[in-house]
């Protein structure tokens, strides 16, 4: 849907629960409405956690992908 490059990238690789979520929240607080955040993670738990985080906080999960043990999420701040 959105092909534009994300506004900010967060490298949460190598971090474990709950750090990817906490760093995501922190990154989003510094961003403006409508901007997008790319989160890179290696924690398999982050797949469900990021989904849950987005639905709870009203942020929009634009995409989630998985390749080579690395997960990528694109989140848009409402």
């Amino acid at each position, binding site marked *: 849907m959105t092909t534009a490059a994300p506004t900010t990238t967060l490298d949460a690789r*190598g*971090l*474990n*629960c*709950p*750090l990817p*979520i*906490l760093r*995501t*929240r*922190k990154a989003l607080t510094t961003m403006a409405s409508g901007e997008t955040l790319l989160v890179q993670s290696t*924690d398999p738990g982050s797949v469900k956690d990021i989904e*849950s*985080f987005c639905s*709870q*906080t009203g942020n929009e999960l634009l995409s989630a992908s998985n390749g080579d043990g690395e997960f990528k999420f694109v989140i848009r701040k409402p």
Partner: protein
Amino acid sequence: MNATAQQLSHQMTPELDQAAFQRLFDQRFDERMAQIEADHIPSMSIISTKGTLDMAYPPFILAATAAALGWDVSVFFTFYGLTLLKKDLDLEISPLGNPAMPMKMPVGPEWLQKMDIKIPNLVMAGIPGFEKMATGMMKKSLNNKGVASIGELRSLCLEADVKLIGCQMTVDLFNMNQDEFIPEVDDWIGAASFLPTAQKSDVTLFV
């Protein structure tokens, strides 16, 4: 004149039929309830009672995560849990009398790291410094797996406005001083002051 007009208008209004009224009411009620639920900020109260390295994780992880989800979080630290609010965090773990704790090597070849090394209680109790060693190994495992330190999680909680509350009775009981604890402690109170907060919380946990 005005009053007469109102009366007339009232008389002319056809009676709303009962079923239509019920439908309208149900619809409005559902909408209103959905709105209330959407506006509601969830809250959580945790009572933290243990001060070992392993038992320090659940309250801080849950509190920090809930805060990240936008919840209001309070943690009441009482008895040994109060240790988690000390300025100097020097937490240890004891494998003694803790049979569920996996004893794993954080370093070495993969086959060795996967092995659960059973150590008799007598050995654990008899070797001086055994707990220090176990603590060191646990810290190494936590670090290897990218799990945050307790200090880091505590800072994240404070940053996210989690209320860290100390039990005044515990301070008095163990002859401690409030100066030993981080200044960010939100309040020093007793059970009677924390329970009303817990009562209004959506989630209450005892750790």
